[in-house]
């Protein structure tokens, strides 16, 4: 089981040796990363089978918790580890000339694996920072051809400021928690939730949520989204919007489910989620090019995920997870094919005639995004709304209204766009980017996965439910990591 440490160690190691390897053989350095990721994938698969429906804790460095470093492994973390490996593979910068970029990607994956697996608050912080640094670097180093390099740098800098401020807030939150409890091990924290019950505990959660929320595109702190997605390659946007944002969400969710099970914390998430949904959709409604539209729609979708997580217990995790996976597929797919739809939307007339397949794939994604039956998006939205309604309480009803209003606005702008795709081409239309890049192939693959999952809604959902039931339970978590500790004040 300890082999899973390799998930973090291998990429980290690769990140450091790639510049060295590149000196001798650029070819080899190009393939190092994918090979490492493939090994990781194999590791994850074997662990998936080994863990079964249970979970495992790995203690590193010979110290036992609450002092030592712990990795916690269950299907939830393995699922996202697998997604990290897959997603990074998909967006691997094959055509980049600099080996630096490979290192950064490796660093990013190492940090991501660590973020998913860690069961220790400070490790989470470290990996989060590592992820942030890798991200700034990648953004600054990956200009799209047409934009001068510096605009990516400027966007990266602006992102750095807000994100670093977020990281510091995360640190502050951790400091408050430590002040209040004297431990940073999440399982240990889970046994002493009463000391975090007050306003100070809540503000610690708020700081963590908002701090990590910068990456998770949470409402007030997501002004970077449009700038960054506007200046980086679409594949990278797919990675950031599809995956990195989810990792930050996972951090927040870990804290929420294990430590801060307070109604006020749920309400906080609900409110920022609602604001994110409505503001994202509203701004996307005014967008005139696809990238901007997708950026803000992504904000809105993340808001939806926060709303889902504001449902207490395993149901929230279940639906939130489904939403995350769905959003990863859809938004990832949309960003992957966004190159074909770049530019002012008025110039995309006639695209559907030119490449009907691309238009059809686009339609599949957006219909699922809107929640049109029988696409998976519909079932998720239905479950979300049904469960929100079950929560009772005025705020949840407001959330339902918000989601549905947002869906209507979403329909309006998406179909404004679809209409243009299906219009007759005119002199104003730009020639369509015909080169079939690999990212478009992957977009098609995503669409196919989406369509296939349509047929297996029930099994998938049941499986996710099992995972959620397992992962949302502090009991199991504590028992695995701190077998000696009894569950203190939690019944």
């Amino acid at each position, binding site marked *: 089981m300890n082999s899973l440490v390799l998930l973090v160690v291998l990429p980290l190691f690769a990140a450091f040796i790639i510049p060295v390897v590149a000196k001798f053989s650029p070819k080899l350095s190009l393939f190092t990363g994918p090979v490492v990721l493939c090994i990781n994938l194999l590791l994850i698969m074997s662990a998936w089978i080994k863990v079964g429906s249970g979970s495992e804790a790995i203690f590193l460095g010979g110290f036992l918790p609450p002092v030592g470093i712990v990795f916690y492994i269950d299907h939830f973390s393995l699922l996202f580890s697998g997604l990290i490996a897959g997603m990074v593979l998909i967006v691997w910068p094959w055509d980049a000339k600099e080996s630096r970029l490979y290192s950064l990607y490796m660093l990013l994956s190492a940090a991501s694996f660590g973020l998913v697996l860690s069961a220790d608050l400070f490790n989470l912080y470290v990996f989060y920072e590592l992820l942030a640094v890798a991200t700034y670097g990648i953004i600054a180093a990956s200009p799209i051809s047409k934009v001068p390099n510096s605009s990516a740098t400027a966007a990266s800098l602006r992102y750095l400021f807000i994100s670093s401020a977020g990281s510091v*807030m995360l640190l502050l939150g951790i400091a408050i928690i430590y002040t209040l409890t004297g431990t940073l091990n999440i399982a240990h924290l889970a046994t002493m939730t009463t000391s975090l019950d007050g306003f100070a505990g809540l503000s610690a959660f708020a700081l963590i949520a908002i701090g990590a929320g910068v990456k998770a595109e949470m409402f007030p702190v997501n002004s970077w989204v449009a700038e960054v997605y506007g200046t980086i390659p679409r594949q990278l946007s797919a990675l950031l919007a599809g995956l990195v944002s989810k990792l930050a969400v996972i951090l927040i969710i870990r804290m929420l489910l294990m430590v801060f099970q307070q109604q006020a914390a749920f309400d906080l998430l609900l409110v920022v989620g609602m604001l994110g949904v409505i503001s994202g959709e509203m701004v996307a409604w005014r967008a005139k090019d696809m990238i901007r539209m997708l950026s803000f729609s992504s904000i809105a979708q993340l808001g939806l995920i926060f709303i889902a997580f504001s449902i207490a217990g395993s149901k929230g995790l279940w639906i939130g997870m489904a939403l995350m996976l769905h959003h990863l597929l859809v938004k990832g797919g949309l960003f992957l094919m966004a190159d074909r739809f770049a530019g002012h939307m008025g110039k995309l007339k006639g695209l559907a005639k030119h490449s009907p397949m691309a238009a059809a794939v686009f339609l599949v994604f957006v219909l699922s995004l809107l929640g049109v039956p029988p696409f998976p998006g519909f079932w998720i939205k239905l479950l979300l709304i049904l469960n929100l309604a079950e929560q009772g309480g005025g705020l949840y009803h407001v959330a339902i209204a918000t989601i549905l209003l947002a869906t209507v606005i979403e329909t309006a702008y998406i179909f404004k766009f679809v209409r243009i795709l299906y219009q007759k081409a005119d002199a104003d239309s730009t020639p369509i980017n015909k080169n079939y890049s690999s990212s478009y192939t992957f977009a098609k693959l995503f669409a196919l996965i989406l369509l296939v999952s349509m047929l297996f809604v029930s099994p998938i959902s049941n499986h996710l439910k099992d995972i959620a039931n397992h992962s949302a339970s502090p009991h199991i978590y504590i028992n695995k990591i701190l077998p000696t500790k009894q569950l203190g004040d939690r019944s």
Partner: protein
Amino acid sequence: MTFLDHLFIVVFISLIAISALRNLRIVDKLAPVLYGLILIMLVRMSSVAYGGDVYLSSVSLDLLDFKMHWQFTALSWYFAIITVVAALASAVFMSGDWGRQYREQGGNYGMLQLALIVNVFSMILLLGSGDLLSLFIGWEFVSWASFLMMVLSPTKLAKKSAVKYIVYAMTGAMALMVAIVMIYSVNNSLEFKQIGEVFTQMSTSSQLALVLLFFVAFAIKMGLLPFHLWQAIAYAETPGPGAAFLGAISSRMGMFTIVLVIVQFIGLGGLKQLGISFVNMQTLLAWVAALTTIIPTYIALQQHDAKRLLAWHGVGQGGYMLLGIIMFDSIGSAGGLMHVLNHASYQAALFMTVVAVMYRTGTSDLNKLGGLVTQMPLTFLVMLIGIIGLAGLPPMNGFVSKWLVYRSLLVNGQPLLFVAAVLGTLGTILSVYKLIHNTFLGQLRLEHQNVREVPWSMLVPMLGLSIIVFITGFMPGLILPWIASVQESVGLPVIAHHLGGIEYAKGGLDMIWVSGILFYGFGVGALIFYFLGGKSKRVHQYDNYAGGHFLTSDVRYHYSNNFYPGLMHLIGGWYRGSFKWLENSIVSVVSFFSIFFENIYRAKQPVMLLLIGVVLALFALYRNLGVGA
């Protein structure tokens, strides 16, 4: 395998077959055959329409703890048969020369056929729904299927209105979803009968919200006020037979669900208990219906495009259906239900005549046509029958259903609603006369001198539909048993009927006699005309009184534009576009908030908010330590 399963299978196979073969010529022949097959399957199930048992499907789906199943009640069957007949007529209509012309003009004929079968499929799915979830899924399917049909037209306006439609439809779907969620959250069940049970358990405000949500959802589909703006343009811009099909039945799915949900499960008692003193939900809905009959009708009166005129009337006629059903008595609800079939038959026929005229002349602009009766007499005949039906004059079927509605309003003592309904009818008469006058009567334009009658592939469905219009008007008793079973199945009082019409204590209706007398009158009139008078002489259209001038072919001697100046002089000021204003202001509000949020994203407020958050959090920490230490 029940009959219902067979029906679903046949429909599904048709869907597959047509989508696979849609780009081959064979689809022309295949599609009508398939619709005929579906019709046969429906006829095999006709016992349900004569008081037989409900057909259940043996298929049920367990998805995510929801159980979905399907069933066919008398109500479903009644709407289904209208759907399939309309689809059959449309398919025949487009199968021959019209389709050829459509292809030549660059239209995607295969997609049109596909859109038609997708529509039929989704409608059958909706009609067959057995619980709220399958209802919702069917509902969404129908919306998207209509959208598919609408976007086929290449014009920019069509696409624009289709998008507008889908936004409206999504709003409706969301309202429906909330309503369903409200029901589910009480008893965790999505069965239809839960609606009634949950409704009785709810608080008054929840009841009000539930009814309004359901109604908004259904009203949007049906284009009832104030959600009527999307429909007419969207339907009018749909390619030919597609418009006929959509105009005939598509928006009536809203009627189906109104009957299914509001009438069957919430019922008169439920509606009446919501409200204060004499204003209750029933009166509110009745007035919505009445205004829907009036306002769109008078909008139609203003149109100078034939298809748009008809489409606006389609919106207006929806009001009669709701007005009838909302009366909840045997005759009123029978009238409302029957009007669905009647409207479908004449509306499809009328749309087809307009499309036929467009096929020959290339325009549906009422100011650019005229005098076509000599060139296209059969099309004229169909349109005449259709407009008599639409205007609700005897002996066509529109009269029967409207008579029932009027009678019900009379019995229930609703003079203002009665006047509203009559106002709608009179407006319709004015408007349809303008339609037939500007198209077929008056002076024939020079460029239309060589126009010929449309080919038989188009005439046959038109004539077939007009025969339905006439026969069901002459012998409403053919339809009334279906209506009676529908009423029985949804728990309304059942109408007493016979072949000629209805029996009612305070004055019934026997259409066989009424039509008979009318035709007797016409016969006598013809006798007088042809045998008592001198021989008439046929003159050329230019041989006409023109105040001493001589008419030649280059003189336009036709009255078409602004046909009712006197009326418009009076009521023209009332066309203020208030609803359009409302729609635009909603868009403006969204736009305002959009700009607001956009600026939030651009400004430094995020950091400001962070600052506030941090100050609060640290203050909390400080207090916590300070007090604790």
